[in-house]
């Protein structure tokens, strides 16, 4: 996020795009409510009536998969009505003319048949966004999990550039990151193209610095993203380019990744699969070796939260069983492979990382201890440098010329759209009580009791009526890739023809249905759009029995002998 979480409540206008804070981040959503109470205007763009949409001044209930067209139309109105911040554009940006040329045709009237949002509402939203003293954009997976995602992110950033909403407090654009430490995994260089602190593996000077520190020559070839693994296993003919070993650390691709049938085939075909985790999970059923590690609560370290804040995690209890910390396990394997690693504690690792990463260098353990939270960049070890609440101060950007770059792109429809055979769209979403693949929340008694297998599919009342199904009925859902059984949840919050499921269920595993199509730049899968069909199940009693039996059988596979849920 270019701003900090606390700043949300002081923006004069919040433009919330494809982000459902109430379900994904309740404590961030609290700031949205506070902003409203302090008098901020709220514009929500979402195909569903989310909690934020309910309290919004304007809700642009667009059709899923039309983000780019809507953003271009907003840019169009801002330019056409002379609402752009001309001085900011002139002093701090580049690429304005090219941007203008592309958004020119996206009048609200042009966008309406794509987005299903009225031209008046698009104009009203564009005016409010441009005119507010400080406008802040918050976005989530409703932007990122499309095959046209990076374009849309740049399009949102362009709206902020166009209106001068960078460089001060309570403005900017904020991707509200989903997993607790997804920001941190990126910060530390668990990415195929960069080391810690976003230092590129193709930059010779950077690579030489790391080669010197680590004492070995390093590859200058960008690695492959995780979402390319299935292709590199199932379709790659050249043995040398195939993936033959997969070291999976703290992830469960056999539940979380799109097109699960393909993932299972991939895991079975790879010569050697290592899984390192705290719980047995679906990926473990395909692993050749399983390395048990300590959990949150059992080890020390640092997480990075969504607004770039480094914060400590601390060991509270002794782990049970014969487990080791993750960094110890990796170090032992490394040493056994002839590259010794002998770290004594996490602080020693952190200090090595800092010494190689100028933008994090000032965030010492001592300083994090003293301040509680430090937002990077933090370059100086002295207590004077307390980090950076918001980025691009004074309108300075990370591009070599110091300018923010405009970007627009033509709208592209989703890769798989509705057809006569698959007449409904499906998007994956989150629910408040469960997290990610649910190995953690599903094993917490208070949370596990909130919702259980096989999960739900949100459908419009009109579609329920058409299919003659009611709340709680089991229903079959299928796509070109797979099928499953889940429960019907009729809700006025969704439009007819569109359906929504959460991805943590084993039986109602919506990733059996999702497509593996990727954004060409970020390689993020299009989890927010695929075509499905729905089929009423007449024999509900045997479907209920099927759900019960499947659940028991998966649990047995995971090593649970008896149902201990009541304990």
């Amino acid at each position, binding site marked *: 996020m270019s701003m900090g979480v*606390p700043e949300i409540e002081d923006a004069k206008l919040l433009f919330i795009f494809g982000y459902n804070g109430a379900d994904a981040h309740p404590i961030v959503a609290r700031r949205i409510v506070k902003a409203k109470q302090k008098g901020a205007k709220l514009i929500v763009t979402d195909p569903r009536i989310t909690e934020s949409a309910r309290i919004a001044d304007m809700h642009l209930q667009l059709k899923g998969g039309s983000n780019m067209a809507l953003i271009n139309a907003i840019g169009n109105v801002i330019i056409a009505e002379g609402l752009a911040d001309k001085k900011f554009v002139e002093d701090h940006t580049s690429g304005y003319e090219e941007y203008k040329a592309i958004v020119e045709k996206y009048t609200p009237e042009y966008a309406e048949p794509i987005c299903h949002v009225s031209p008046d509402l698009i104009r009203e939203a564009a005016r409010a966004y441009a005119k507010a003293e400080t406008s802040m954009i918050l976005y989530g997976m409703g932007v990122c999990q499309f095959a046209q995602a990076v374009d849309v992110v740049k399009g949102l950033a362009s709206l902020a550039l166009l209106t001068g909403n960078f460089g001060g407090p309570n403005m900017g654009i904020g991707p509200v990151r989903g997993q607790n430490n*997804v920001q941190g995994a990126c910060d530390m260089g668990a990415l195929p193209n960069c080391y810690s602190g976003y230092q590129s593996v193709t930059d010779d000077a950077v690579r030489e610095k790391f080669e010197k520190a680590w004492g070995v020559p390093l590859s200058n070839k960008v690695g492959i993203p995780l979402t390319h693994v299935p292709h590199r296993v199932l379709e790659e003919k050249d043995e040398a380019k195939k993936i033959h070993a997969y070291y999976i650390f*703290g*992830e469960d691709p056999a539940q979380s990744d799109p097109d699960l049938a393909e993932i299972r085939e991939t895991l079975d075909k790879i010569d050697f699969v290592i899984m390192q985790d*705290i719980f047995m999970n679906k990926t473990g059923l395909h692993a050749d070796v*399983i390395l048990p590690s300590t959990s949150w*609560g059992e080890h020390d370290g640092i*997480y990075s939260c969504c607004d770039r804040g480094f914060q400590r995690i601390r060991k509270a209890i002794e782990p049970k069983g014969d487990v080791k910390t993750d960094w110890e396990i990796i170090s032992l394997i490394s040493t056994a492979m002839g590259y010794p690693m002998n770290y004594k504690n996490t602080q020693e690792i952190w200090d090595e*990382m800092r010494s190689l990463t100028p933008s994090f260098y000032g965030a010492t353990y001592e300083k994090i201890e003293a301040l509680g939270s430090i937002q990077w960049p933090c370059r100086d070890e002295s207590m004077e440098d307390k980090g950076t609440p918001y980025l691009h101060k004074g309108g300075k950007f990370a591009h070599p010329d110091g300018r923010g770059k405009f970007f627009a792109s033509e709208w592209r429809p989703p890769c798989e759209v509705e057809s006569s055979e698959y007449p409904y769209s499906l998007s994956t979403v989150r629910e408040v009580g469960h997290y990610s693949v649910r190995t953690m929340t599903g094993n917490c008694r208070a949370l596990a009791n909130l919702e259980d297998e096989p999960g739900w599919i949100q459908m419009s009342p009109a579609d329920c009526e058409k299919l003659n199904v009611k709340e709680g009925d089991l229903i079959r859902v299928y796509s070109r890739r797979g099928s499953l059984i889940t429960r019907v949840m009729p809700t006025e919050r969704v439009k007819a023809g569109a359906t929504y499921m959460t991805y943590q269920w084993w039986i109602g595993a919506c990733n059996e249905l999702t497509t593996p199509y990727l954004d060409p730049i970020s390689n993020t899968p299009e989890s927010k759009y695929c075509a499905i069909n729905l089929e009423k199940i007449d024999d509900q009693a045997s479907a209920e029995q099927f759900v019960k039996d499947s659940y028991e059988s998966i649990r047995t596979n995971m090593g649970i002998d008896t149902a201990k849920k009541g304990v």
Partner: protein
Amino acid sequence: MGKQILTTCPYCGAGCQLYLNVNDGKIVSATPAAGRTNEETLCLKGRYGWDFLNDPQILTKRLTKPLIRKNGILEEVEWDEAISYTAGRLSEIKAKYGPDSIMGTGSARGPGNEANYVMQKFMRAAVGTNNVDHCARV
């Protein structure tokens, strides 16, 4: 005697600060702390999401011993065997197909930044590939 441990919540990117209240080596509750982003509030996951550490075995169970698949079945082994087997197979595959035939992941969840740094260093320096990524995309 009870003690309070200040830590960061392991759910979502909000970065809420909380106290784990520990009694006799067991967590008994979580209470909100005055963090920069949460200001003494917590959601239901922050309040009740620590129970998995007690391993109630509702869904699946904690892994407590290294396992190696032998003749199709996962069998418990000692750490020495698990490490030398893993390192041996990785070295074999690296020798046969080259370092780019190996893929590794970081973790966006519980392990923390230091473990991610060590993982990417391992993939880059010990294996010799930039094939390291994590679930940021899913």
